[in-house]
């Protein structure tokens, strides 16, 4: 495991990371891929909702909100 790798839900707001690995069940995995979250994609953590969950991310020109459990399954390398 790389030392600079974190799960997406731990990526601090305002920071960017590159997707290393997706850990999700089949249906959820396909959705994430369709949204462009393939390995190598740059993701930026934009802002948290008032309660801290979900969090909005910037992915390939779109703003996508993900709940903690889904973002927790996406491993990113801090960039």
């Amino acid at each position, binding site marked *: 495991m790389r030392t600079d790798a974190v799960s997406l839900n731990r990526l601090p707001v305002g920071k960017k990371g590159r997707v290393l690995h997706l850990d999700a069940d089949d249906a959820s995995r396909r959705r994430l891929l369709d949204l462009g979250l*393939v390995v190598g994609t740059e993701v930026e953590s934009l802002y948290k*909702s008032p309660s801290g969950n979900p969090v909005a991310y910037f992915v390939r020109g779109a703003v996508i909100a993900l709940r903690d459990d889904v973002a927790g399954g996406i491993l990113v390398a801090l960039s």
Partner: protein
Amino acid sequence: MRLTTQSTGAGVLDFGGIHIPKETPNDRIIALAGNPNVGKSTVFNELTGLHQHTGNWPGKTVTTACGRYRKDEENFFLVDLPGTYSLMAHSAEEEVARDFLCFAGADAAVVVADATCLERNLNLVLQVMEITPKVVLCVNLMDEAGKKKIRVDLEKLANLLGIPVVGASARSGKGLDALMDRVKALCDGAETMPLRPRYHEAVEQAVAELAPLLEAHGCPVNARWLSLRLLEGDAAVSESLRRYTGFAVSEISGFPSALEAARKTLEEAGFPQSTLKDHVATRLVERSEAVARQAVSFEKQDYAERDRKIDKILTSKATGIPIMLLLLFAALWITITGANYPSSLLAEGLFWLEEKLAKLFTMLSAPAWLSGLLVEGVYRTLAWVVSVMLPPMAIFFPLFTLLEDSGYLPRIAFNLDNYFRKACAHGKQALTMCMGFGCNAAGVIGCRIIDSPRERMIAILTNNFVPCNGRFPTLIAIITMFFAGAFTGAFQSVISTLLLTSVIVLGVAATMLVSKLLSKTVLKGLPSSFHLELPPYRRPQIGKVIVRSIFDRTLFVLSRAVAVAAPAGLVLWVLANVHVGGASLLAHVSGFLDPFARLFGLDGIILMAFILGFPANEIVVPVMIMGYMAKGALLELDSLAELHSLLAANGWTWLTAVCVMLLCLMHWPCGTTCLTIKKETQSAKWTLAAFFLPTAVGLLLCFVIANTARLLGLA
């Protein structure tokens, strides 16, 4: 299921829920695809205008609209497919869209894409291009992209993709003529050279082994595309293929074994089915990225800066929820204040007309029962619906539409998602709840955006806990009469608005509590994973929205008033004027309901009004008034103050008012909503549940509050 020729020779397209009777043999069928939130419906509406109809897909909760566009004496039938991110058939919407593109035999497809987010949209474009070469790309929202200094090189894009590309700003109708020119050219045989992504060598090898076999047996769809899907193990595609075209891959001699062998070779090359799916999806995304990088340039790196700033204010911990409440407050305040003047004006006018009508009947020496039936029954109920109910509805609805068009609703879902997650419900339930403010039936249909059947059912069953447009005026009238009446001037409308806001917050809280209750009992389960797109903010077309939705709402309320309020007034007048055993039928009915109603802090007339209001909530107050007036209390009634004294004379206290408001917020859904629930759930059992659930909660609350207040001697 495909195109069949009728005796007229023109033919009919009958496909799934879509039925298009062609008018001439030259009529063209055009599929309209695109991601959600790209203005696809705007393109569709601008092109087809009022020449539309919708169809439901059998066995699926998916509706597709079909409309006609005429150009140079030629008909183009446009089929508006559901908005999807992909065609890999993960949901009913995607399956419908894919099946139509693959099997309906459309003459061409238009993919609508968002110029401000082109890269993500290209994924779907490439997928459609794998299915058919007859594709036109419509890059919509060019005006928005221009504002953000995003430059889309349309010519380059067309060269890279190998298909015609047209820029458009559908909201102002720009670019749509050019779009249809290209569509027509494609239909007339113009060639395209669609870019088809190359996959890993091993995958290409496997496809090369399978595709010729399929082609040799007359494969009715693109053989390369079908080979890929079969290699991925997509069972639904073979099923649809057989159903729509009769082409059965398993019956081609040697094909099943060839497929098996190809899969095995792929697996050995490092591509088992799951890896293959990932590889295909990844390649499409990478290809989109490469195309977008060449064709799109961002002159301002921080082009989304303004959206970010707005989002930070509208969704932050400190300000997100307060601003949401403030916006709700503002919308309701405008509704309450704005409705006052037109309401009293309408009341004056309509009751002036009532006098004239009554005089006319007397002049014609019509029998008393006839003038009673028509003037006091039908006309007066109509007049009440129009004067009390119409103005707030016609003001709130456009305000709501403006919020919706600006892109704020997904932010509400973002802000509230945590509560829905804790209730084990779907995050998009916040969206369907918001739609319920406009109309609960629309909210119930909106629940289709929730994929998980369990979570969709929760959203449907609880939609009625937020008051629809037709219930707002009742709440406003009662609040004004009983709670804000003590205040004067501007302060009065502020107090009214505050109280109404609290009633709505109570409804939202009930939605969450009941959702949680359902999740823990009959609809047990964990929340499914979901994502929520927060689309860019768009300046709504204020003038257009206001004019159109006031007009629409007015027409809608008026037509319902004629269809429902008029007959209800008639029934009521008969009930009030036919006497049996010394008392009117009305007295019998309300007397019968009375002891039961009193348990809940209500009375017989109120309960009867809610029951008679089943066809439409707008008539509840008018029926109540008619009910009390039939007892002969007051004859002239053209202001809320007089209504207040009428109600007070009939024993209404603050407690009655509270209980009526609670019951208004929580009782059975109106007739239209019940029918919609039946249609959407395909189940009488769940429709009954949706009927009794809010009713039980409402009556329980009324019971507890009424009896507590009585015990404490407060009322």
